[in-house]
């Protein structure tokens, strides 16, 4: 195969091969420049290094396997076997004999870059032969806005993106966090400024490989965390005042080992963000009613209504899923923890073998009854200070035990919220009140905030299946929960 490439290369370069100079004009305001290209028999070739630089792509080359990879955001272009095989995102695309390898460099025919390579990677390149100019256009902006919300104790800046962009977080230096958003294109040269705020400024800089976002933190060494947000899509920079947390509670040990705990103390933060978790989704249907209504669909419908109703009352709400997809349970809890939510409400419909079984019930987390000694031992072992919020297989047991102790702090509030929801629904729903119950739910097992799970009715009961699909019934549930949340807020004065 190697020989074949050589022959092709030699053949192509046998005729007069000229270095030619062309103009490059950028649509994003970069100054016009002139670059050298290769010309052979009226065909212009660009080197892959040039292509990468012009289009802002990430290039990796493995010369041992004769392979070059170009990346832009989520798209990957591969040139294999000296450029004779082209693959876009794992699929072969047929370019013909339009590329060759010479020494350490691959060269690609300009026409093929224009028609196949650039559009495949979501970029744009146009060759104006008459004017001898290459026009390079970057894709439509993928970073559309920055939304900043602040309270006295914390600031949440959401960098809204179209699609999910990969990013890399560089460690803070001199109170500045840098986030490299790969393939990101910033829509406006907008930034954020707030003298004396927890976030003093946010700036975005367009670079060839993407966007660099620089967040300058305020004085007092505030804590921060950067994480992806699912709904709306974006990257969240959460910054909080550290003083909040430095008040030690002699009765409560987790703050040393639980990263979250020195960020939020549930009693001191106003309730202004609620995470709503529509249970199940995708292939995970939940219970299915006798006439086919699926729990996953009800859960999503009612969760969206609940979100809208809360927002009408001035309380922000976000969903752990906003589509018919299955989001794994750990991710759901991660979302709740990482956005600094104040309450977590998981929405479900119940199911049982007897179609007569019916009614609504509200659950909160039972503090697990594991030996206290084991809990303490696990915390000693965890020692170093940060507990991964992401719970992998190995960490599951320990994370659970840590959660177990931590949850105790929230049990009182969780049970109170469950009680309030039960009271509200009891007055309005004309079905059996099965009451407030405790159980160890997976989805609540990692949530470090007051959390409840609502079983609105039994979808396996034909009469209740009909009710669950009914707008008025759904509204009654939503209103009851909203009322309960408002009473909860008022009770705790936050």
């Amino acid at each position, binding site marked *: 195969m190697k020989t074949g490439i050589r022959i092709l290369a030699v053949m192509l370069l046998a005729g007069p091969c000229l270095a030619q100079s062309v103009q490059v004009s950028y649509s994003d305001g970069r100054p016009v420049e002139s670059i050298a290209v290769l010309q052979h028999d009226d065909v212009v070739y660009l080197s892959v290094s040039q292509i990468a630089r012009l289009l802002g792509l990430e290039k990796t080359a493995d010369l041992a396997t004769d392979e070059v990879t170009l990346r832009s955001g989520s798209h990957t272009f591969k040139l294999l076997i000296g450029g004779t095989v082209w693959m876009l995102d794992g699929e072969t695309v047929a370019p013909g004999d339009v590329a060759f390898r010479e020494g350490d460099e691959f060269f690609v025919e300009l026409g093929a870059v224009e028609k196949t390579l650039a559009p495949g990677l979501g970029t744009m390149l146009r060759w104006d032969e008459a004017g001898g100019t290459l026009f390079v256009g970057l894709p439509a902006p993928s970073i559309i806005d920055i939304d900043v919300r602040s309270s006295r104790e914390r600031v949440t800046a959401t960098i809204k993106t179209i699609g999910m962009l990969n990013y890399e977080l560089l460690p803070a230096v001199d109170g500045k966090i840098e986030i490299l958003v790969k393939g990101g294109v910033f829509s406006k040269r907008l930034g954020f400024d707030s003298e004396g705020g927890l976030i003093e400024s946010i700036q975005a800089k367009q670079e060839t490989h993407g966007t660099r976002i620089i967040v300058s933190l305020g004085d007092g060494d505030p804590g921060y965390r950067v994480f992806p947000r699912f709904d709306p899509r974006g990257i969240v920079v959460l910054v909080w005042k550290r003083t909040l947390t430095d008040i030690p509670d002699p009765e409560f040990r987790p703050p040393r080992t639980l990263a979250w705990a020195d960020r939020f103390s549930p009693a001191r933060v106003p309730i202004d963000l609620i995470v709503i978790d529509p*249970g*199940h989704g995708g292939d*995970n249907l*939940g*219970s*299915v009613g006798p006439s086919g209504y699926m*729990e996953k669909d009800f859960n999503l419908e009612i969760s969206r209504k609940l979100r809208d109703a809360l927002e009408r009352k001035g309380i922000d709400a976000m969903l752990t899923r906003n589509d018919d997809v299955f989001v794994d*349970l750990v991710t759901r809890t991660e979302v709740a923890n990482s956005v600094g939510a104040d309450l977590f409400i998981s929405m*479900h*419909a*119940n*199911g*049982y*073998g*007897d179609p*007569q*079984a*019916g*009614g609504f*019930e509200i*659950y909160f987390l*039972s503090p*697990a*009854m*594991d030996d206290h000694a084991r809990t303490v031992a696990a915390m000693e072992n965890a020692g170093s200070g940060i507990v991964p919020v992401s719970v992998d297989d190995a960490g*599951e*047991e320990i994370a*659970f035990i840590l959660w177990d102790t931590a949850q105790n702090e929230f049990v009182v509030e969780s049970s109170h919220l469950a009680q309030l929801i039960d009271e509200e629904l009891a007055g309005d729903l004309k079905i059996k009140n*099965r009451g407030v119950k405790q*159980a*160890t*739910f*997976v*989805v609540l*097992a990692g949530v470090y905030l007051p959390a409840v*799970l609502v*079983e609105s009715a*039994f*979808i*396996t009961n034909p009469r209740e299946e009909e009710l669950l699909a009914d707008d008025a019934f759904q509204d009654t549930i939503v209103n009851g929960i909203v009322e309960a949340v408002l009473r909860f807020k008022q009770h705790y004065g936050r």
Partner: protein
Amino acid sequence: MRKAATVAIAIMVVVVLGWYIRERVSGPSGPGETGEVETTREVTLYFGSHDGGSLVAEHRQIVSSRNILENLRRVLEELVSGPEGEAMASLPASARLRGVFIHDRTAFIDFSQEIVKDFAGGTTAEYVLISSLVQTVCANFPEVDAVRILVEGEEVNTIGGHLLVSRPLKPQEWR
């Protein structure tokens, strides 16, 4: 934990094998022999109530062995086969018991994948499934303080997507 389960399975294999060999060596006890007499034992099985809000006890006679694991297996097979009276079945009838063993006062119960695949219920059904298992095992075997559920030999997080089962399940918690 997976390692512990493997070790415990190995222990179980040795125990069962030992029991089997002993039985073979001593030979089957026929009528009139003074050796082992076949005894029966009354056991209590817990199934779901009709509204799913509680458990219903059913008493049954089973052939009793001197081997606790064999007895545990027989009790669980009775539980899977479902109620004889008016109560509701708590486990999918298709679930097969792959193995049982006891380690450190915890009964490990290994089911075939049908326990997950054929489980179609909501939270209430799932709660009844777990509590019926835990209560049945602990009521009949005072040697056992907790139950752990395995599926195809592996620990699982949850049976039906609601309740966490990858931990010791104790009767005082699953009422």
